[in-house]
């Protein structure tokens, strides 16, 4: 079933791709092929592969239970929040939070998580910023 859904999504994706490709404007300079032909070919391959999934799906993969799925969703959300807050809060603070969350969810106890989070953040800061001179996001406190 998963493969059938996947095939359906793939088919929609390829149709969407073809539609967006038809919208590519022509340019005043053009070659014999133009900017649309190759994308059409790609979409055709994708559509054929997707139809194949619909006709002949693989055995069902082992999906995680709902709780674990939410786990992955939350981790992604934390990463998104991290990406947004990085320029605001600076590297050290936001990284400490994100790393602490991830290690907590991977099985550290709460106290350990805080220590590992702070340690990870300071360790990366020391190695990459202080030793290697990489510019990391600066927060209001200057680090």
């Amino acid at each position, binding site marked *: 079933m998963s493969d059938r859904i996947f095939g359906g999504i793939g088919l929609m994706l390829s149709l969407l791709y073809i539609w967006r490709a038809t919208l590519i404007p022509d340019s005043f300079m053009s070659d014999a092929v*133009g900017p649309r032909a190759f*994308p059409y070919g790609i979409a055709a391959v994708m559509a054929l*592969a997707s139809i194949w999934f619909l006709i002949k799906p*693989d055995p069902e993969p082992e*999906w995680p239970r709902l709780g674990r799925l939410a786990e992955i969703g939350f981790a992604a959300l934390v990463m*998104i929040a991290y990406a947004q807050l*990085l320029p605001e809060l600076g590297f050290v603070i936001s990284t400490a939070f994100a790393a602490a969350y991830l290690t907590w969810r991977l099985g550290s106890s709460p106290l350990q998580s805080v220590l590992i989070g702070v340690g990870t953040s300071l360790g990366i800061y020391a190695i990459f910023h202080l030793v290697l001179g990489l510019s990391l996001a600066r927060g209001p406190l200057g680090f």
Partner: protein
Amino acid sequence: MELLASLGDGFAVALTWQNLGLALMGCFLGTIMGALPGLGPSNGVAILIPLAFTLGLGATPSLILLTSVYYGAMYGGRISSILLNIPGDEPAMMTCLDGYPMARNGRAGEALALSGVASFVGAFFATWGLVLLAPQLVKVALLFGPAEYFALFALAFMTLGGVSSTNQAKSAFAAALGLGLAMVGVDTQTGVPRFTFGEVHLYDGIDFLVAIVGLFALSEVFIFLEHRGTDKDASTAPKLDIGRITPSWKVLKSCTPTMIRTTILGFIAGVLPGAGASLGSFISYSMEKKLVDRDNTFGTGDPRGVAAPEAGNNAAAGGALVPMLALGVPGSGTTAVLLAVLLSLNITPGPLLFTQNPDVVWGLIAALFIGNFMLLAMNIPMVGLFVRVLMVPPRILMPIVAMVSFVGIYGISGSSFDLMVMIAFGVAGWLLRKLDVPLVPVILGTLLGNAMEVNMRRAVTIADGDYSVLFGSWLTLALWAVAIVGFVLPIFVGGVVKARMRGAAEREAAITD
């Protein structure tokens, strides 16, 4: 003689303090990354690319650092295979079969040292193979026009699933996805934006480094989150004593013919498109088992069963560099990532690389030789250190991997937008992995998509809009023929090979448990 002179120049490039230091660092980091379950060579190199890039290293130093990581990871993969019965990366799977039983018999140190020597033999002679074979392939490649290149790219995609692929439709889907993503951005030939949805950040296209780090490194973090606390959790495996860490001469001597045979076999498997290191170690092990396993000791801790796959997979790693450097078309996941390194340094691999940037090519090859000796020196006496690194639990390791990925990508562009794209790739990578869709064709598609299209359009434009030029010469026809055979063959034999690889590993696990 010309070869030796070029190689000498290469050593002159590689033997600076900075490059030696980078090679040492790369070998060390690579071994660690290879050893840690879940961080294979592709991941290891992927995480470090943005760093090499943002540190402002030149082309040759970056390449030296990253190929050292590549070779190092190939060495390191065996450590967790032998000690924990968990392959550090896919090619190291076959090493579990005899390595883990050897460790259970109290010969862990011996197995580690022997496999270190076997890795060295495989990698060392494969590097010589690279020196000898790559310039010959370049001569062929110089005959290639745009139509031949288009066919060659098609060949790379169609054979990438490889003989061990179970579902070619999924490889094809992955390749189309990658190629489709490569189209995003301003068209280089006509200057019109494509698939950008009016988003200015997308006009430059999607940075393949962002895609690689997201697909490989971040999706790994998600996999660990999914499997925490289940029996697939790597952190719960029992620990073992190491024992003596030098192999006896007797064992080395008995393994020498094995190492020589499997080196040759592995190198060939590495050069061929669509085979790569996993297959190299698999056929090496199977062949040795057929040839020398008279007393049925393979699978119960036979040293030759440790030496065979290790020499095979390291030789394949060297062999895989041949098509990557000479043709610009990688045959495996990690070499695809190395291609990303070259492209992000504005170096186009392929036949012209050897004439235009000989210092890069030969410096790199010299660095491979040096790195090999460093790895041998590092892996025999210091193996205890790497074993200790293995004890770092994933709950500490994976957050570090995630955060270093963010640092690297943020370092390149300094924009949150790229980070968001990377997270999207991470989630997509996890989904695709669940659905058994290979990720390497996606990467290769984003890397080669534009070059493939440019060659196709150039060929057709030169022929005044006649598409038949793509099949117009004997060389293109030969390439297409190989491509089609490479795509169709796995449909018939692929399931068999893969089932055997899995079956062999599982039978073994059943015996040792």
